[in-house]
């Protein structure tokens, strides 16, 4: 036994999921609109932020953040961390269902670069069958770099509706871009004519922790 960075239930799963992920992340970094073909009217997408997930404090990069902490300002207003979101209204509104809502949610996330092709060590995966819909579950862990602010400002609604000036960022003050770590779970099911449909897409965002969890040699 021991730590293994990649797990695939069988060869078919390996081929399907590595193809899926490499194409997905290429489009996620390039043009998210091109991903919408994978989502249908019952597809669900939501994000959650775990700002207190453990990570190694990197003293060489902390100077760019206030207080040395990671700025999650682009994510928090949409975060469906259900340990913290209790109102029914918020719980429902923070799941995007169907292409239109999902595309809108994608555009409220910062633009990114995932170095999957040049540095696959940054990622680990578990891929296995989801027998109920003859589908597969793809779980990927890794990190990305934020390269630009979101297409649409996720905090725009809050600024209009919330109490003026109180806990909001000052106008035009954008959250600092930085590296983040993430975990993302896809349930992918077969669609018509050999296509694939994402039935469920759960994205978890946390402070940047690098790749050591799945690449360190176990200590004796």
């Amino acid at each position, binding site marked *: *036994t*021991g*730590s*293994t*960075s*990649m*797990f695939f*239930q069988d060869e078919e799963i390996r081929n399907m999921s590595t193809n899926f992920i490499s194409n997905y992340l290429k489009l996620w970094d390039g043009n998210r609109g091109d991903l919408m073909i994978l989502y249908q009217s*019952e597809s*669900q997408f*939501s*994000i*959650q*932020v*775990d700002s*207190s*997930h*453990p*990570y*190694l404090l990197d003293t060489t990069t902390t100077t760019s953040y206030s207080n040395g902490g990671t700025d999650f300002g682009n994510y928090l207003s949409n975060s*469906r*961390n*259900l*340990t*913290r979101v*209790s109102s*029914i209204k918020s*719980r*429902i509104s923070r*799941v995007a269902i169907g292409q239109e809502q999902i595309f809108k949610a994608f555009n409220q996330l910062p633009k990114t670069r995932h170095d999957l092709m040049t540095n696959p060590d940054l990622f*680990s995966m*578990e891929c*296995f*069958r*989801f027998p*109920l*819909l003859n589908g597969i*579950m793809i*779980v990927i*862990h890794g990190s990305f770099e934020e390269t630009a602010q979101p297409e649409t400002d996720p905090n725009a609604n809050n600024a209009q509706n919330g109490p003026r000036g109180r806990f909001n960022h000052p106008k035009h003050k954008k959250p600092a871009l930085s590296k983040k*770590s993430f*975990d993302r*779970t896809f*349930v992918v099911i077969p669609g018509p004519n050999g296509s694939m449909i994402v*039935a*469920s897409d*759960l994205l*978890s965002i*946390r402070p940047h*922790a690098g790749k*050591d*969890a*799945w690449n*360190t040699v*176990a*200590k004796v």
Partner: protein
Amino acid sequence: MSQIQQDPKPFLKKFLSSLDIQFNSPTSSTQFANVDQYATSFGKNLKRSSAVIVDGTPLIPTGTDDARLEFQKKWIQVPLTMHQLNSYDCHLIPGTGVFVINLSVKVKFDESGRSKLGESADLVHDSTGSRNTRPIWGSWFGVNINMVVDETVINNGDGEVISSFDYRFTYKPDDSVIRI
């Protein structure tokens, strides 16, 4: 609107605490008649046929032992744990009767060198007379857990409801001596 009742949080907390159970805890009311009974209390919400993956390694049924038992045999060898639920999110997948749940968790281990049964591999025992066997907790590890759970968990969180369980370390502190 029954969405608020459809919250697996109580189940998730209970499940995580089933991973942290002590064999003989002076403060706990739980007492086990024997080691088998103790071991089979870990993760008892797993179905016997569950797909179980721990840190990228599948626990494959062998002979008469199903995947859940393989997990329990592994887990009793792991030092005592303390899990904390930081975050979770879930989707009910239409037409399936199951939730897909993604949990963000942290965990620390007892680094006293004792096993869950209180045994130490040390040949030379501390002879100062101290019988303090409280756990010595190490640093926090980061963990991401993915589960497929029957929708019925909302009404009854005690049953065998988990059909897949994927436990992945996302951060390992470099001052820890724990191996899983």
